[in-house]
């Protein structure tokens, strides 16, 4: 009792305190109420002062231009919204790329908004005006007029730029233009010149080949012109469904091309020559050529060689042999074989060669000597980064010190620019005029799609300026086209007409272009006998030099990063490698046997030593990898690429060897050693590669297909009464026989749908956000671990008619549309993740954090500049909501609307999803099932059509066409 009383008495303040507690509560309530009712920040709407003619806010404009992502120079169409390029698509007018693109090309639009780009010219590390820097440079050039002036570039495929360089050599007597390619083809180039007297590398036509044999040439992934070759390969495969077509691949590492071959054979990286010789021997025998060939003892699969050689011979004139080696003798042998087979002029075109990869390794080595000798007074580097991608990068940097003036045109302060006196940042190609001739006779134009973002200047304009001419590359290109190309055609009668059409189409084909067959292009046997002897000799030397415990090293390019010039592009860094599914960094690929010998597993750190050069890399154990060969990807380990690309992986260029004046990407003197206890977990998006015998990727042999089995699947009965659908029934079919897994679609989707980049840590946690992924299943033959059965399967939301995800969402955040789309409504989602759990295909992606505008995820949407790439028609998802493939519903809406606006029927094929548009193999078809004549409806009726996990009765609207295997690939999964 007393207690109770005191409880009141002893605290006179109790009441008051309670009261102002209440008032405080009241206040906060009121405040929050006010806050919630107030309309937040007032939004301003600022119209144009004078609206540009061609621009309406909210309406997209398309411009034709040319990709500068690599030397293949694919023609592009660029989508701009309100003056900003936001999406890159292939230009269907192009006879080469045929409207396809690669992941790199898709990602270049993001590089435009790279905040690490230089915003203006720099002189000795200080910002400076263009006038000032021009003055200083012209002074020094004048001083150096009689002395060595060198322009060091990568391959220039632009005729106008080539003409401009010619002007320079006219002006400066001692001017030299040296070009090299980070990944060199100079041996192939030299061999072609020696054999056929052509300058350039042959232009290959896989679409005309019935038998394809590749020796370590990843022509579907990174070799020369992957987009074009993928298109050809897929086209040939499509035709082959009704006949015989076979692709053999001999390779040391597992490449994208090898994964897609009908028959893949392992080999040691040093056996290029041996295999080429073996093929030559057998084919020569067929051809009745009797001269004996030197022997090399290499452990190569004679049966495989015999099979390949016989098929090559059977299909002579429509077969093709390509080799990725950078050794002149080997390439001579390859040319010899193609010549004997009569493929020259049929599938291997040397009259109208590819103008890619004109680099000359010897010239660069010579240049370094000249620089050291002091013969070079002005050095201009354009499109190359020798400090990074030359094997002797450090030597080059040292040599730069003895050059009076070094100028870099790099768009950022990269490894070379950092050591240059002057940096005159070039435009991004989407800001600049230009042209290209990647293959003799096929031209394309490049036009600016946006006014320069920064105070940059096209390299060509700088070069013009320093020649004392008006820095106007546009007129220069026009002039070149008037001079060179206008005359070659008779379709247009005024140049302006010609120019406008070319600019509109983006491409121009020289009508004179056409394949003059010289099937009988024989080459002097003495030449290839010499080459054969050289190969045998090298082989013996190498065999003698090989230490017992040493491994062979093979350096390769990855589909994502290629030679590393795009290392600062987060889309590419997070693009899973098609073969290993690893993102963010390189690693050392080991055969399982080698891993066992070293006692390492994937993720353990291995120290690799070549002479005194050492580097530590995580291991990746790869079935199919040659026993004694390890592979490392080039293009990583940049230290001046920018915030994203710096210190990702290890730079492997210093490991490149030299031989006979040519770079060599294979070497035999590598010692490996396990770094005990050290781990570098790889950021892989797929860690389990066996299909576990599950009927997910269905395969059919050519025989079965031709013999009409299996029958078309009867549709599964549904428990539910069929709901009546709407006007359309959208559906997609993916041809697993055409898909090579090149992953262009992944980046295209990322660009189109504002898919965030989450970084290596999140990928390690299994939280990548890609809406479309490419599942890669590999099963190894028990007897022979080089005979892989690799299957790629693009996997995105299957848009099930009876979707398991929809039933379980408590708040109706995912429901079915009347036209067959499984809709995800982000703003309704409360994030229970139940749908994700109940999705059999695991294609739903959850926003674990606030990715957009979050400093923790400083990749694509933090910097206001980067945000300019966002697609304004797709909402940027916030934290805590589920997202997934929408079948590019924004594109469907847009096309339906424009059809309505123009009062026409929505034609089949008008709507192209982002993945479909980018696909160089045309493996993806989208359309309306309600129209029985539509392509997709036709494919759905095909005997090869199936849907994944159909036994679950989810009735997906996304279907697949079975893979067709050809040849005795009996060792199939399950």
């Amino acid at each position, binding site marked *: 009792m007393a207690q109770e009383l005191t409880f009141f008495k002893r605290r006179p303040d109790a009441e008051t305190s309670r009261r102002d507690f209440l008032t405080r509560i009241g206040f906060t309530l009121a405040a929050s109420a006010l806050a919630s009712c107030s309309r937040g920040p007032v939004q301003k709407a600022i119209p144009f002062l004078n609206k540009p003619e061609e621009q309406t806010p909210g309406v997209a404009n398309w411009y034709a231009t040319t990709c500068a992502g690599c030397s293949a120079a694919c023609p592009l169409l660029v989508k701009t919204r309100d003056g900003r390029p936001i999406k890159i698509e292939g230009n269907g007018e192009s006879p080469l790329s045929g409207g396809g693109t690669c992941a790199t090309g898709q990602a270049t639009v993001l590089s435009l908004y790279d905040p690490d780009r230089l915003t203006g010219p720099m002189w000795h590390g200080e910002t400076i005006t263009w006038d000032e820097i021009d003055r200083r440079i012209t002074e020094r050039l004048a001083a150096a007029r009689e002395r060595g002036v060198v322009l060091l570039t990568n391959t220039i495929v632009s005729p106008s730029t080539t003409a401009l360089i010619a002007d320079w050599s006219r002006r400066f007597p001692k001017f030299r233009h040296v070009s090299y390619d980070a990944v060199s083809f100079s041996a192939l180039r030299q061999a072609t010149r020696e054999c056929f007297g052509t300058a350039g590398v042959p232009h290959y036509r896989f679409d005309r080949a019935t038998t394809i044999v590749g020796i370590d040439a990843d022509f579907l992934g990174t070799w020369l012109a992957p987009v074009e070759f993928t298109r050809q390969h897929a086209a040939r495969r499509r035709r082959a469904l009704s006949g015989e077509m076979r692709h053999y691949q001999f390779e040391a590492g597992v490449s994208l091309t090898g994964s897609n071959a009908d028959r893949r054979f392992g080999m040691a990286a040093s056996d290029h020559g041996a295999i080429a010789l073996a093929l030559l021997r057998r084919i020569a025998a067929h051809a009745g050529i009797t001269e004996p060939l030197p022997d090399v003892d290499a452990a190569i699969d004679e049966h495989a060689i015999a099979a390949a050689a016989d098929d090559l011979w059977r299909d002579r004139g429509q077969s093709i042999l390509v080799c990725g080696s950078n050794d002149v003798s080997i390439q001579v042998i390859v040319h010899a074989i193609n010549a004997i087979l009569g493929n020259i002029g049929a599938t291997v075109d040397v009259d109208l060669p590819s103008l890619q990869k004109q680099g000359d390794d010897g010239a660069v080595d010579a240049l370094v000597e000249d620089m050291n000798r002091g013969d070079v007074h002005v050095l201009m580097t354009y499109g190359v980064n020798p400090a990074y991608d030359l094997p002797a990068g450090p030597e080059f940097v040292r040599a730069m010190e003895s050059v009076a003036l070094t100028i870099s045109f790099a768009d950022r302060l990269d490894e070379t620019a950092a050591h240059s006196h002057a940096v005159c940042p070039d435009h991004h190609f989407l800001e600049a005029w230009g042209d290209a001739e990647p293959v003799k006779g096929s031209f394309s134009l490049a036009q600016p799609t946006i006014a320069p973002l920064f105070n940059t200047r096209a390299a060509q304009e700088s070069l013009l300026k320093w020649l004392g001419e008006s820095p106007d590359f546009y007129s220069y290109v026009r002039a070149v086209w008037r001079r060179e190309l206008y005359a070659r055609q008779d379709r247009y009668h005024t140049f302006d007409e010609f120019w406008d059409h070319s600019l509109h189409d983006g491409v121009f084909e020289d009508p004179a272009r056409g394949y003059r067959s010289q099937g009988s292009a024989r080459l002097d046997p003495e030449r290839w006998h010499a080459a054969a002897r050289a190969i045998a000799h090298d082989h013996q030397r190498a065999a003698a030099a090989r230490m017992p415990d040493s491994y062979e090293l093979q350096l390769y390019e990855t589909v994502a990063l290629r030679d590393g010039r795009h290392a600062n592009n987060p889309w590419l860094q997070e693009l899973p490698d098609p073969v290993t599914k690893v993102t963010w960094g390189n690693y050392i690929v080991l055969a399982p046997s080698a891993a066992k010998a070293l006692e390492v597993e994937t993720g353990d750190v291995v120290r690799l030593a070549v002479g005194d050069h050492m580097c530590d890399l995580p291991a990746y154990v790869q079935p199919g990898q040659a026993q004694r060969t390890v592979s490392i990807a080039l293009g990583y380990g940049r230290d001046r690429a920018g915030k994203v690309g710096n210190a990702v992986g290890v730079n492997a260029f210093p490991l490149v060897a030299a031989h006979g004046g040519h770079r060599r990407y294979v070497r035999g003197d590598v010692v490996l050693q396990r770094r005990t206890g050290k781990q570098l977990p790889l950021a892989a998006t797929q860690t389990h590669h066996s299909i576990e015998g599950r009927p997910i990727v269905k395969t059919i042999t050519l025989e079965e297909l031709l013999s009409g089995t299996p029958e078309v699947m009867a549709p599964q009965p549904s428990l539910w009464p069929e709901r009546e659908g709407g006007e359309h029934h959208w559906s997609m079919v993916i041809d697993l026989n055409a898909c090579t897994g090149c992953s262009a679609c992944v980046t295209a989707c990322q660009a189109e749908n504002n898919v965030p980049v989450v970084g290596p840590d999140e990928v390690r946690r299994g939280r990548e956000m890609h809406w479309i992924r490419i599942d890669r299943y590999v099963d190894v033959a028990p007897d022979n671990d080089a005979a892989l059965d690799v299957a790629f399967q693009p996997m995105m939301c299957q848009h099930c008619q009876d979707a398991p*995800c929809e039933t379980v969402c408590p708040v109706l955040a995912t429901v079915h549309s009347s036209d067959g789309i499984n809709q995800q409504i982000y703003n309704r989602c409360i994030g229970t993740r139940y749908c994700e759990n109940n999705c059999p295909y695991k294609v739903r992606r959850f926003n674990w954090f606030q990715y957009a505008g979050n400093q923790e995820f400083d990749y694509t949407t933090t910097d206001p500049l980067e945000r300019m790439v966002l697609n304004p028609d797709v909402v940027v998802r916030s934290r805590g909501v589920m997202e997934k493939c929408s079948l590019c519903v924004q594109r469907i809406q847009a096309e339906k609307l424009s059809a309505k606006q123009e009062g026409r029927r929505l034609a089949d094929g008008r709507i192209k999803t982002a993945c479909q548009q980018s696909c160089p193999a045309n493996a993806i078809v989208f359309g309306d099932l309600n129209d029985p004549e539509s392509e997709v409806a036709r494919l759905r009726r095909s005997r090869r059509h199936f849907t994944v996990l159909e036994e679950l009765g989810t009735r997906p609207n996304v279907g697949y066409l079975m893979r067709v295997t050809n040849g005795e690939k009996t060792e199939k999964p399950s």
Partner: protein
Amino acid sequence: MSDAAREFIVARFEDERRLIDAVRAVRARGLRVYDVYAPYAIHGLDAAMSLRRSRLSIATLAGGIAGLVASLAFEFYAAVIDWALNVGGKPDNSTLAFIPIAFELTVLGAGLATVAAFLSRCRLLPTMNARPVDAAVTDDAFVLALRCRQTAFDRSLVERLLFEHGAETVVSKVIEP
């Protein structure tokens, strides 16, 4: 009401057995038992006092039916009539899927109705001044209360009767209704 009207004979017992005897005896004498107070439910007392069986279960049934009908009707309205959405290809009226919620709300309705009926029937409401006839009935006492003003009431006789049946104390007391 005059004091006489509110005057009661209050007998206190220590033991439910004696209490029941007393109740029987008193009623045998044709006297009406006003009420009995105990610390717990005494089995057999209902019979002795011949109390009618409670009809609370009707409230339970009513509440249950209300909950069932209301929930089913609302689910049907929301999912079929108001806005029929295609959820996983299921029919708009997926009655089976509506049953679990309907069941829960049935139970909820029934339960709350029962308790509400009980409280109101027994006039159990939050009060500051509860006046039990004897503070000990909630602890260990058993009390029998008889209204004084009734026919055939004879105080002395009744007191004797009660003591005979083991009452400890018998007092006359005024009880507020």
